């Protein structure tokens, strides 16, 4: 392994360690989490967990339920340790796969890779991969599977590669709806010339995709139509009932807004889950520094990417053989994959805008930024443009650096919120009628509560006031 690549992995390891530390300081969350752990405890086995929710709910995520059960059984009573270890393992894998996706051979590559790394970590869509303290963070698992699939597409084709790609697709689809992005990324890679995954394998995956569509939109149609998620629109956040009341039940300009807002949130860090927080702040005469940092760093980076794509012009579609890329340059393929994943993720957000849904697109945005920055640095600029680009890199990079460090701030705030939620157990469960009757289940809930409550958590009152204005926050 080259020295620059080694340095890139070392920096990624440090960033991953820092985020992992934040994860270890954060209790498991109560909402959308405790009920799943209880279900795992009461389930007779992993297969029973896998099949338990199929056809019963809006969602089709049986693998996630099965994994929760598997980790529960393997934990030997150390539930927090088991779930956190799995979360951290996924996080480290995501970092490793991301650096592995970068072509780092020279010092210039290393500089671009470091820039991309802080985009990967600092982009707000990354937050959903870590701040959600579920037993299994399905958003992160899908990111790992999509990155792994793209890695397979770059390999020398074989039956094992095909089998692994199909397995990744199946696992992703059974984990979360956005697991379909595995197919999108592989199809875009193949159309751009990567041949690691064969055509028959892609055809097989397409067949599975059709089957998935039938299950999701025919068999589970009544549940899907009953979905009533809240979402942002303009300056406000609307509940499901308000959305139906204002826009009706069918397709409307609200759906178009969601698609465009979802693309914009990756490219410009605005809006956030559909709400135009920057412009709302502007209209109120108070735009905190964190919003400037987010919007400016993203806009400059998006400009870099746009410049790199536009300046390639006709070359974007023209053959430029490079080793392992089957006829097109590696950056061209990654730009195409980024575009495909961004478009598909945005379309998948037509019903409601949620930043977490765009987390895979956020990863490929960072990958595209790597190529764009590398392209800018090696293009042989004259003095004035070079100084302008240097300043733009410094401004954007500084913004991304603040956003990267800010992930720890968000995790700390989230830890405080989760810590407080545990204080209301069992009263909250009694109020909701979910306090278990079985003494052994009650014992587990109380153990989880006591472990969570015993964790030392920073009270936000003791954190400097400027931190909330400079570092990102959990908006919704």
């Amino acid at each position: 392994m080259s020295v620059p690549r080694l340095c890139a992995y070392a920096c990624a390891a440090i960033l991953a360690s820092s985020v992992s530390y934040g994860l270890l300081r954060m209790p498991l969350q109560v909402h959308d989490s405790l009920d799943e752990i209880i279900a795992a405890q009461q389930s007779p086995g992993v297969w029973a967990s896998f099949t338990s929710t199929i056809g019963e709910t809006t969602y089709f995520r049986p693998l996630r339920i099965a994994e929760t059960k598997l980790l529960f059984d393997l934990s030997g009573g150390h539930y927090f340790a088991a779930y956190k270890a799995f979360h951290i393992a996924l996080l480290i894998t995501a970092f490793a796969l991301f650096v592995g996706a970068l072509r780092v051979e020279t010092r210039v590559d290393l500089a671009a890779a470091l820039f991309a790394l802080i985009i990967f970590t600092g982009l707000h869509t990354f937050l959903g991969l870590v701040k959600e303290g579920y037993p299994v963070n399905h958003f992160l698992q899908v990111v790992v599977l999509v990155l792994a699939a793209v890695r397979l597409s770059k390999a020398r084709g074989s039956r094992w590669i095909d089998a692994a790609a199909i397995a990744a697709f199946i696992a992703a689809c059974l984990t979360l709806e956005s697991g379909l992005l595995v197919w999108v990324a592989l199809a875009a890679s193949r159309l751009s010339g990567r041949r690691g995954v064969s055509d028959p394998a892609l055809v097989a995956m397409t067949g599975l995709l059709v089957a998935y569509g039938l299950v999701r939109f025919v068999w589970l149609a009544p549940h899907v139509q009953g979905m009533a998620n809240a979402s942002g629109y303009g300056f406000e956040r609307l509940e499901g009932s308000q959305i139906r009341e204002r826009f009706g039940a069918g397709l409307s300009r609200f759906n178009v807004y969601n698609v465009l807002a979802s693309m914009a949130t990756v490219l410009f860090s605005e809006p956030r889950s559909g709400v135009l927080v920057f412009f709302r702040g502007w209209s109120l005469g108070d735009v905190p520094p964190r919003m400037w940092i987010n919007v400016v760093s993203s806009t400059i980076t998006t400009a870099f990417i746009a410049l790199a794509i536009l300046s390639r012009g006709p070359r974007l579609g023209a053959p430029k053989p490079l080793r392992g890329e089957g006829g097109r340059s590696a950056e061209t393929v990654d730009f195409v994959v980024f575009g495909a994943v961004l478009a598909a993720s945005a379309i998948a957000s037509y019903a409601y805008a949620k930043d977490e849904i765009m987390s895979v697109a956020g990863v490929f945005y960072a990958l595209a930024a790597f190529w764009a920055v590398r392209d800018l640095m090696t293009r042989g600029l004259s003095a004035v443009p070079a100084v302008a680009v240097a300043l733009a890199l410094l401004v954007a990079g500084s913004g991304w650096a603040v956003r990267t460090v800010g992930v720890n701030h968000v995790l700390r705030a989230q830890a405080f919120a989760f810590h407080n939620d545990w204080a209301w157990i069992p009263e909250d469960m009694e109020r909701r009628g979910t306090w278990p009757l079985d003494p052994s289940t009650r014992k587990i809930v109380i153990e989880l509560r006591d472990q969570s409550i015993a964790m030392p958590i920073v009270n936000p009152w003791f954190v400097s006031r400027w931190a909330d204005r400079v570092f990102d926050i959990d908006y919704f």
Partner: protein
Amino acid sequence: MDAGPNRFVRLLSICAAAPALAAVAVSAAIVIMGVTSDTPPFWRGGSLTLSEAAALHDQGELVRLIASGHDPNAVYPLRANVLAVRALTPLEAAVGARRPEMVDLLMRRGAAVDPNAWRRLHCFAMASGAADVVQMLDRFRPAGSETSCVGISTPF
């Protein structure tokens, strides 16, 4: 004069890498501070008293302290800037900070009020203008409690 097409590569590389290296350095510091200290990084407050936890909406810490043996009815010191006085009971601190949910939590976790104590808290909440705290206190009103605030002094 021209050193070739790549004469600015070093400058551009430094500008791209420097902020990232700064972020990596801060991240490394967070990890080092975390593993070499008992308290998390950025923790500047030290331990909370039960009354401070009640005033600062720290429900988890409040439950932890009560579970570890702290009396929810005792008077505890408050550091400067938390509230306008330097010592209160947890219930007084919750009322003074206008936190009805903390009153609720304290009452569920062993805090007790007799009619006289309830009346003082009620008048304290009335004086602070916190209608939601007054409503919450009403849910725990002991039999025989008076609501008149004539002659009742409040902590601040």
